[in-house]
């Protein structure tokens, strides 16, 4: 990897990302998983760790993590084995967490990332960030601290959680940002998680160290916590790198510690040092039998794996000759990409760029303005309607400057484009008689220009075009206007 340096120091970054898996029920019991419910309403005897309760694994959670592993090129372990991580904390009902210690279900793999290009519409450098492992575990509850007491809400406890651990292989805040962007899209494409950071569905801790450029030994590691948005991850890492460089530049020494990043203030403070590290007393959970993951199971999940954004981008370039400015938008939303391809199928491959442009220029504008979801708007204006609209423009039936008006009408009431064009009288073909009249009117109204044109001043023809276009209200095709004017002026 290319390495940027600050004052001769190179940063080394590894990320530990927790992703909540989107399952209907919790990982070890049947009670529903969810966000935004009244405190402690998503609990049952198992979640509350009442005496005598036992965990039973939710297969959907294992399916999801195996799928994540397959999408990221991990090796899938032949057996899913469970361990207990023992520690006392009030958000942990059993005072141990069921997790995977020495045998994670996914080993290795990588996340493909793209760094910012020289300009927004130019592709940046691609890299692969290697992964150490991905393992499955249960989420804990949430503490709410009051002035005199603390309350605990166990709704989140037992939500299936993946921990995705990267190798210490990133070297800048931008790389970390790109890593999270790509990882998040992978999870969303795979239907594994919605990755809404505000709801805690994706959480990130960063391990950061610096070393003199060229040095191969790792420096003293600082763990940065509470990076609550993708921007905070970038800002927090950048801040921490600067802080570490500052400490060394001033002749100080770094200590291995955990620091808490305050994204709003842009500052961090030490939470604990290494000396206070826990002994988690891991041991295999005797309540859960190891689960065998055979080839048939993996094959079934592999068949469900979707194409990921970067692969989609590459295919869109190869199959449809789309420019980067389109692929970098269309390929990063599964619904949008599917919509695009369905529309292209209806419109014909030679209209792919036109379809892509229409989606980016008009469909996405509607998404923004109407604040509707891609799915809802796609249902109102199906891909075939988009294809028809693009076809009408390409055949000259509809003029480019009328597309915005037609599109807006289609999204308003779901009417097919031809119906909108007819209803609003926008067809560029129905005005042969009208066009002649507008042109005659324009010529009649400007004797000066007529005289100039007749006198040999070719550019005087332009003086008639404005009024014609105005009279046509979007229906007048400039090419046909030009031809008609020449015909009439030649009379």
């Amino acid at each position, binding site marked *: 990897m290319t390495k940027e340096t600050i004052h001769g120091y190179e940063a080394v970054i590894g990320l530990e990302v927790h992703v909540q898996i989107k399952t209907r029920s919790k990982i070890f019991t049947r009670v529903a998983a969810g966000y935004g419910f009244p405190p402690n309403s998503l609990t049952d005897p198992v979640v509350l760790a009442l005496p005598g309760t036992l965990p039973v694994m939710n297969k959907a959670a294992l399916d999801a993590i195996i799928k994540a592993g397959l999408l990221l090129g991990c090796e899938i372990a032949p057996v899913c084995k469970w361990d207990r991580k023992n520690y006392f904390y009030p958000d942990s009902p*059993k005072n*141990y967490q069921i997790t995977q210690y020495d045998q994670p279900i996914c080993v290795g793999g990588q996340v493909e990332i793209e760094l910012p290009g020289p300009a927004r519409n130019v592709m940046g450098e691609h890299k692969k960030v290697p992964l150490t492992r991905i393992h499955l575990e249960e989420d804990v509850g949430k503490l709410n601290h009051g002035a005199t007491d603390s309350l605990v809400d166990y709704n989140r406890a037992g939500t299936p959680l993946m921990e995705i651990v990267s190798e210490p292989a990133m070297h800048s805040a931008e790389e970390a940002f790109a890593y999270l962007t790509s990882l998040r899209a992978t999870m969303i494409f795979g239907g594994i998680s919605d990755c809404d950071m505000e709801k805690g569905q994706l959480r990130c801790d960063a391990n950061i160290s610096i070393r003199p450029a060229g040095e191969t030994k790792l420096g003293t590691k600082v763990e940065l916590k509470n990076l609550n948005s993708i921007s905070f991850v970038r800002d927090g890492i950048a801040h921490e790198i600067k802080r570490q460089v500052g400490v060394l530049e001033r002749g100080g020494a770094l200590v291995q510690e955990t620091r808490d990043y305050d994204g709003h203030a842009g500052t961090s403070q030490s939470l604990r040092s290494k000396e206070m590290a826990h002994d988690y007393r891991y041991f295999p959970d005797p309540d859960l039998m190891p689960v065998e993951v055979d080839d048939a199971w993996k094959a079934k999940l592999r068949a469900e794996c979707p194409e990921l954004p970067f692969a989609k981008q590459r295919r869109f370039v190869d199959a449809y000759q789309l420019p980067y400015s389109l692929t970098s938008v269309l390929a990063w939303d599964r619904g949008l990409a599917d919509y695009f391809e369905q529309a292209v199928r209806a419109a014909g491959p030679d209209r792919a760029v036109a379809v892509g442009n229409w989606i980016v220029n008009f469909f996405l504008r509607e998404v923004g303005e109407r604040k509707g979801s891609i799915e809802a708007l796609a249902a109102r204006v199906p891909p075939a309607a988009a294809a028809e609209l693009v076809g009408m423009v390409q055949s000259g039936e509809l003029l480019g400057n009328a597309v915005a008006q037609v599109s807006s009408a289609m999204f308003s009431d779901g009417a097919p484009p031809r119906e909108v064009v007819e209803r609003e009288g926008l067809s560029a073909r129905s005005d042969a008689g009208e066009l002649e009249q507008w042109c005659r009117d324009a010529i009649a109204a400007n004797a000066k220009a007529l005289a100039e044109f007749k006198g040999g001043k070719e550019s005087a023809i332009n003086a008639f075009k404005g009024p014609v276009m105005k009279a046509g209200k979007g229906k007048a095709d400039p090419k046909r206007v030009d031809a008609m004017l020449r015909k009439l002026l030649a009379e």
Partner: protein
Amino acid sequence: MSSELHFKSIADLSGLLENRQVSSVELTTAVIGRTKAVDARVRAFNSFDESGALAQAAASDARRGAGKARGPLDGIPVGLKDVIAVANQPLTASSRMLANFVSPYDATVTVRLKDAGAVLWGRLNCDEFAMGSSTENSAFGPTANPWDLSRVPGGSSGGSSAALAAGEAIATLGSDTGGSIRQPAALCGVVGLKPTYGLVSRYGLVAFASSLDQIGPFARTVEDAAIVLSTIAGHDPHDSTSFKAAVPDYRAELKQRRGPWRLGIPQEYFGAGLDPEVNAAVQRAIAFYEARGCTIKEVSLPHTQYCLDTYYIIATAEASSNLARFDGVRYGHRSKDAKDAVDLYFKSRSEGFGAEVKRRIILGTYVLSSGYYDAYYLRAQKVRTLIRQDFLNAYREVDALLTPTSPAPAFKLGEKSDPLALYLCDIYTIGVNLAGLPAVSVPCGFTGGGLPIGLQLIGQPFQEAELLAIARGYEEGHEWGQRHPVL
């Protein structure tokens, strides 16, 4: 045979109920009366719900009247060890920690007993969190042995064995982690069965050591144990360690299996420390089987000497983690003067747990600690595999093993104050838990002083039908189980 209702077997009582010679309300009333008459001395019960039991009995009689009786357990009062959850009943584990805890849910065995129409009767005393061999570790005081009130009933399920022996229930359930059903059964002169690990769901059993715990029945006869086992056994989707297999009708199987059997006598179970009277009784049992045409073969379980150490590493390690949930945060004892979360843990747990529980938590925490895990826990698991292999090797030549259940009959209350001396009570029973095997203790005589002696038969995995048939083969020729203590 005793004419008193409270000393009859399930098999006899179900006949009487079916023929309307007795009602469940009459039977339950008799058991309640007996309990009230003797339990001040036996102290088998932590609590009981008299009106609740009578309501269940009345419901059973109504079912029977409508022709909808549910089988041999319908209307029979069954007591549960106070580590098995019953919805809306106390669940104390005989600990101060859970002194005021009421379970909001039923254990799977509870659901199955209720579905079978059993009258759930009382919460039975035990060693705190099932840790002990004498029931002296109960936070609510020890249970006495009905055969000699100055002696222990065994443990940890001492309340279950004593209640049954004293006629305070018709059958009871206990849990067995290292002998906690079989040893008290032996010391109280009743039948006690520890099923194969995974045969009976652990859901709703307050966990001591997850990989060793099993729920099982105490009964007056092998046939009664078979009836209860048929009701509680079988796969449970709430317990991942429960075995997916069809459960036979163990009572019907008893009649099909008549032997002769090949019985192995593990030489390691007859060494130093075995009480001569116990040894003599067991030798007479061996001679009995031989006279009935069985093949007796001496076998060796060479890793037996490591059982106790292995057990106390694995059991305490699991216990240290299982008992972490008792923290005073969500339920259970909560210290009144804690300053913060950590202080709450320290104080609640210091106040809530008794000495033996603390000892085992500390031991278990130690053996799992970083730097010690490989030397203790991991090695113990390897030895455990060898111990299981010993048994499986023996089963190539024999159908079951025959041993004493306990090295000695019931000892005096307070006699064994050294924890290690108490741990030695389980020397013949813990190997079975480590190997995950089924084993049953059946009465095989009395000492000169009138104390019951138990015979242990150890079976092959999931071969309870054969094991019970072998036990029944002995029981048919003897009347030990039909004697009752005078209280």
